[in-house]
């Protein structure tokens, strides 16, 4: 599992802020600000963070659905950050996306058969009759039935729609699937069904996931390694065991302690962070977390800490550990 499937280096996405009648750029929202990570073949890399931390932008930049400002993205050793959009399309055979909202991501005017068959048709895979067979197969794989193929999305519940979304992502037999909050719109009992399905498909088809979510317990359940993002930067990246048992970054510690536990007897010490996440249009200098950090030092206000490995692949970007 040490073969790198996706390599991301210095990925940046700055959205210009325009104002006035001439629409002049007056500043940038640094949604993703210089992040590095690798995804190994067959693993699940979780990406957690609060709203606005840039986790979804990261996922979309990798697929170049949002054009990154800067950085290198290597897929199977090939630099795809400058590939033209036509060529990029052939790469979508290997990289697919599952969206958050199962209501908005399916075209309401197409039947399930059309929805699932379309990616295959676009890529010229299979003959029409083979395609039909493959659609039925896909439906069975995600726990639906072949007779569902003739139905329209509105006839399905949220959980079933998410299954269709998953089937569509799998239609081209991709290597990498980017799951952008795939279960956050679902009820708990349905959420567990979909999580189990994703895990089972990974084992059967040897998929690699980039799993983006805000729910820390969900991410822990599904991921092998987890990256924690704050204001466009990865502040900590580690194997899930060490991350959850021994979080190093003060933000990760606060984030983990804030999760309500479904056990009324357990009272944990909670670190309550002061204030809100600052605006990414005007992030604080140095370490972006320093205004809310209880262990803030002088250096944190001026110098950006770099993500460094502190043994066993436990990477953290914090000045506390740099001494």
């Amino acid at each position, binding site marked *: 599992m040490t073969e790198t499937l996706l390599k991301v280096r210095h990925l940046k996405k700055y959205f210009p802020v325009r104002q006035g009648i001439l629409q002049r750029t007056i500043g940038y929202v640094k949604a993703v600000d210089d992040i590095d990570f690798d995804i190994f073949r067959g693993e699940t890399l979780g990406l957690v963070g609060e709203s606005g931390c840039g986790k979804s932008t990261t996922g979309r930049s990798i697929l170049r659905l949002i054009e990154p400002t800067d950085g290198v993205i290597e897929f199977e050793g090939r630099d795809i950050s400058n590939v033209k959009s036509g060529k990029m399309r052939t790469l979508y055979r290997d990289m697919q996306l599952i969206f958050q909202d199962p209501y908005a991501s399916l075209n309401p005017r197409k039947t399930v058969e059309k929805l699932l068959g379309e990616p295959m048709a676009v890529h010229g895979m299979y003959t029409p009759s083979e395609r039909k067979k493959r659609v039925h197969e896909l439906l069975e794989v995600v726990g639906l039935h072949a007779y569902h193929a003739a139905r329209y999305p509105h006839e399905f519940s949220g959980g079933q729609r998410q299954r269709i979304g998953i089937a569509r992502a799998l239609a081209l037999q991709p290597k990498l699937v980017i799951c952008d909050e795939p279960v956050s719109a679902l*009820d708990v*009992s349905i959420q567990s069904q979909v999580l189990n399905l994703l895990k089972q498909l990974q084992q059967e088809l040897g998929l690699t996931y980039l799993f983006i979510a805000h729910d820390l*317990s969900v991410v822990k359940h599904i991921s092998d390694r987890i990256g924690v993002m704050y204001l466009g930067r990865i502040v900590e990246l580690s194997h899930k065991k060490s991350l959850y048992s021994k979080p190093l970054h003060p933000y990760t510690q606060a984030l983990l302690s804030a*999760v309500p536990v479904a056990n009324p007897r357990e009272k944990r010490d909670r670190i309550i962070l002061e204030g809100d996440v600052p605006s990414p249009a005007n992030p604080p200098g140095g370490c972006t977390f320093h205004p809310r950090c209880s262990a803030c030092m002088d250096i944190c206000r001026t110098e950006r800490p770099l993500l460094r490995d502190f043994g066993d692949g436990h990477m953290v970007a914090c000045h506390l550990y740099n001494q």
Partner: protein
Amino acid sequence: MKPLLNISGLKTHFFTAEGVVRSVDGVDIMIGEGETVGLVGESGCGKSVTSLSIMRLVPWPPGKIVEGSIMFQDKDIVCLSEAEMRDIRGNDIAMIFQDPMTSLNPVFTIGDQIVETIRLHMKLNKKKALSRAVDLLKQVGIPRAEQIVNEYPHRLSGGMRQRVVIAMAMACNPKLLIADEPTTALDVTIQAQILDLMRKLKKDNGTSILMITHDLGVVAEMCDRVVVMYGGKVVEEADVNTLFTAPSHPYTKGLLQSIPSIDQEKEWLDSIPGNVPIPSEMPEGCKFAPRCIYAMERCQTEEPTLYEIGNGQKSRCFLVEEGARYDGNTIESKTS
């Protein structure tokens, strides 16, 4: 404990072109003074309609309370006139909604909106009402309250807006606070702040809280007693410790097992098969039977009542009556 609110046999139905939707179908809930009761269930189980019924905010048409009573102190809310109801809303019973983005009026300042509530129910002049508004904002932990009071809602973040909504709800020291998914739209660290705030307010003012949520972690942290709803009915009721350690109804068990835990390592999650039935396809008999691994023949045709188990725990399941002992995944009385 003295009951503050007592709902009995509440039925709220919606009369639509496709037929009658029984969103709330015979619900009994008691909330004691100073108690926090959690109302848990998945989307469409009727938990929000129950709370709207308490506030008499169910839109007619198509919705209507067709049966039952809601005793608040010594008044039956169901029989009150609209004018009497307006007196209670915001004064004795206040509500916090899920989405802090839409529950504030964008064209009035925060001060205006809090002052409006205060002046409707309390005999205070404008100046005093405004200073009370500032005090309230300070209570809910808003920095620079004197300035924020003159700001418009769009200037505040989600967490801040939810604090304002809470301040507004607490403006007249209500006896009961209904919180409908108060933290669902917020990030975890902000959620922790808001839950902390609600606990503090409850301690300081002795307010009873009806906490409507689907997040069992929030329930475990905030509530004294929990009511679980499924298909418009209460399926289990217990104090919070009993519910999490010895749940009785198969649905409650399924729910508890299907959440991934941050402390435990599990390869596969247990999940409840199938989907929540849509109202027009509500099964006969036990509403949960089609998804229940313990379902027996009689579950398909007969509807169980809410059985008393003891210690205040109640469960709507025939297994209680049959005295069947079952735990985890072993099914000892699958066939009757």
